[in-house]
């Protein structure tokens, strides 16, 4: 099973990605998908601008996806991350894990997102509703803690 990793400016279609992942594999009994969307922070934000490190973004997400594929018996894994200007309500990131049974799919998708947040080279900058440029979003200690729990056994 080779994970599918894509870094793109364009939006993605969750249904189409799931259909492509499961087509021709009748052994899949569970598909878990997670989509991360841009919030407006109660009206404060006009958009988020996502900067990334081309090349390393693909490589690092592929490394995380390979780790997930080693840890759980998966039939398919997809990670798509967008860059550029993304407005509230639009999709930023997609993780899909497919397996024979649900537990592996839930855990692999959760693991993929936790590690992607702390290791994939992407940075968010705020564009404010009043038209001005906001600051860079700061990394959260919660996200580091979430990633670390996978090292301690779940």
């Amino acid at each position: 099973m080779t994970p599918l990793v894509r870094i793109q400016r364009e939006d993605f279609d969750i249904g189409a990605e799931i259909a492509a992942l499961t087509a021709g594999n009748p052994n899949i009994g569970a598909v878990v998908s997670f989509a991360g969307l841009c919030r407006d922070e109660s009206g404060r934000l006009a958009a988020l601008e996502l900067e990334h490190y081309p090349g390393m973004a693909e490589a690092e997400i592929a490394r995380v996806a390979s780790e997930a594929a080693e840890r759980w018996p998966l039939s398919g894994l997809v990670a798509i991350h967008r860059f550029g200007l993304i407005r509230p309500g639009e999709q930023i990131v997609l993780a899909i894990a497919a397996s024979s049974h649900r537990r592996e799919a839930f855990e692999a998708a959760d693991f993929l997102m936790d590690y992607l947040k702390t290791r994939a080279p992407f940075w968010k900058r705020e564009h404010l509703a009043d038209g001005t440029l906001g600051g860079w979003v700061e990394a959260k200690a919660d996200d580091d803690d979430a990633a670390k729990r996978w090292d301690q056994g779940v």
Partner: protein
Amino acid sequence: MTMAITEPASLRLVYFAWVRERIGLPEETVTPPAGTATIADLVRWLKTRGEGYELAFENPAVVRAAIDQTHAKPATAIAGAREIAFFPPMTGG
């Protein structure tokens, strides 16, 4: 190929997010002085190159680094590196 640590070759440096903004460049090619062996050594030297660099690395513990597109720690040796990146903690996802 062997490469003496005391004579680093020219290096491509790339910067992202507020590290890029503070330094004022997205990328540059540099030849660090002899004896620049680790990421931490490289940061110490970069901080002497001007106010923007000093501001970018004012708290070196915060800035992350990657050698040839793989995460690296301050103590990681840079011998043989072609591209070194500096950036803030990641906020994707």
